C-alpha cells in the first residue's frame, strides 16, 4: 500500500508545482496598465457667492436672420442655468440690446450736439482732445444690420456702460447679469478632398481609384461673447469669447436653427464653467 502511494504523492507534487508555475506566469503576465474612468471637476471661473439670482438679460445679435439668436440664446442659457447652477434664474422679457445700444448712441450724439464745445486744457494746440474723439466715436451711426465682427465691434461699448447696468441691476435687486453678443453667420468654402471611386476592371475585379476634387461646403460660424456683470455696481466681472463653426456638403440642406444648436452645444459647457463647478468625464490609464 505504501509503495503504491509514493508515486501518487510525487505526481501530486509535480502537478502542484506546475500549477504554481502557471500562477506565477499569470501574475507576471498580468496587465501593467488599467483604464479607469475619471470625472475632472472644473472650478468656476467666477465667484458667484455674493449672488442668489441671475438675469440673462439679452444679447446684441447679428448675422443671418434665419434664427432669432437673441431669443434662442437667452432661452437656452436660462434653461441650462436652471438645471446646472445653484442660482435662481430671473424670468424677464428678453432685452433688445442692439436697439438699446443704438438709442444710447443716438442720445449721446444729440447731447454732444446740444452741449458747448469742450476744451481740453492739457492738450497742445492742434492736438485732438480725448473728449472730442469720444464724442465723435459716439456720434457715428452704428452699423445696422450687423453682418460681421467688424459691425459688431462698436456695440461692445454697451457692456462698459456701468451706469446702465447698475440701473438694470437695481431694477432686478442686484443679480448677476449675463449678457454679450452673438454673431451667427453663414459660411461657404471650397475644399480639396480625396474621393474614392469603386469600379470593376476588365477582369471583373473591384478597383478603388482615388480622385482629388474641389468640394463646395457650406455651413455656419458662431462668434459668442459672454459678459458677466455685477448687478450691484454695473461693472464687468468677466468676459468669455468663443468661436465655433460647422461645415456641411453643399447638397446637404441643414436648417439654420439645427446648426445654431449644434454650435451652442459646444459652447454651453464652457459658459457653465464660468458660474458653477462642472465635471468633465474621461478615461485615463493607471500604470503598475
Amino acid at each position, binding site marked *: 500500500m505504501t509503495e503504491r502511494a509514493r508515486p501518487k504523492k510525487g505526481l501530486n507534487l509535480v502537478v502542484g508545482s506546475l500549477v504554481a508555475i502557471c500562477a506565477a506566469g499569470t501574475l507576471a503576465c498580468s496587465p501593467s496598465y488599467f483604464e*479607469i474612468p*475619471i470625472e475632472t471637476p472644473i472650478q468656476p*471661473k467666477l465667484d458667484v457667492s455674493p449672488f442668489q439670482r441671475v438675469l440673462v438679460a439679452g444679447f446684441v445679435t447679428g448675422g443671418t436672420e434665419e434664427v432669432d439668436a437673441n431669443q434662442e440664446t437667452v432661452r437656452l442659457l436660462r434653461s441650462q442655468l436652471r438645471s446646472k447652477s445653484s442660482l435662481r434664474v430671473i424670468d424677464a422679457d428678453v432685452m433688445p440690446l442692439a436697439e438699446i445700444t443704438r438709442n444710447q448712441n443716438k442720445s449721446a450724439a444729440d447731447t454732444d450736439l446740444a452741449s458747448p464745445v469742450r476744451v481740453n486744457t492739457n492738450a497742445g494746440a492742434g492736438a485732438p482732445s480725448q473728449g472730442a474723439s469720444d464724442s465723435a466715436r459716439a456720434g457715428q451711426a452704428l452699423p445696422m444690420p450687423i453682418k460681421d465682427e467688424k459691425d459688431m465691434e462698436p456695440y461692445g461699448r454697451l457692456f462698459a456702460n456701468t451706469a446702465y447696468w447698475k440701473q438694470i441691476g437695481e431694477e432686478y435687486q442686484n443679480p448677476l447679469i449675463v449678457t454679450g453678443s452673438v454673431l451667427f453667420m453663414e459660411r461657404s468654402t471650397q475644399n480639396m478632398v480625396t474621393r474614392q471611386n469603386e469600379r470593376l476592371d476588365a477582369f471583373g475585379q473591384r478597383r478603388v481609384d482615388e480622385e482629388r476634387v474641389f468640394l463646395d461646403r457650406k455651413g455656419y460660424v458662431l462668434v459668442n461673447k459672454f459678459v458677466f456683470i455685477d448687478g450691484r455696481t454695473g461693472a464687468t466681472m*468677466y468676459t*468669455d*469669447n468663443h468661436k465655433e463653426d460647422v461645415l456641411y456638403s453643399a447638397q446637404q440642406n441643414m436648417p439654420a436653427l439645427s446648426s445654431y444648436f449644434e454650435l451652442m452645444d459646444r459652447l454651453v459647457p464652457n459658459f457653465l464653467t464660468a458660474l458653477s463647478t462642472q465635471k*468633465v468625464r474621461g478615461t*485615463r490609464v*493607471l500604470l*503598475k
Partner: protein
Amino acid sequence: MIQRIAFLLALAAILSGAPAYADTRGDAQAQVKFGIDVAQRGLWREAIYRWERAAELDPTYAPAFNNLAVGYEHEGQMEKARQAYERATTLAPKDLQIRQNYELFKEIHDRTGAAKERP
C-alpha cells in the same frame, strides 16, 4: 528524485513570481498596486495617499507619478496634477500612455481655461 524536482520547480516558481518587496522599487510597486485596487473601487483619496507614498519611496518610479497625476486630476487639483504629469513624462519620456494621459489633461485644462479673459 521526483520530489526534488518538484521542490526545485516550486522554489523557482515562488522566486520568479513573488514581488521583490525587499527593495525600494518593490515597496513602491506594492503601494502603486494597492492604490490602483482602491481607485478602481472609487476610493480616490486612499489611492492618492498610496501613490504619494510610492513617489516618496522611489522618486524615479514614473508610474507612481502618472497615477498620482490621474488621482489629482480626479480630485480637481489641477496644478498638482500638472506637476505630477510633468515629472512622469520627464522620468519616462517615451511612455505613450503617460503622454496620452497628459495630452488629455492639457486638452481639458486648455479648453476650460484658455479663453479666460479678465477685464
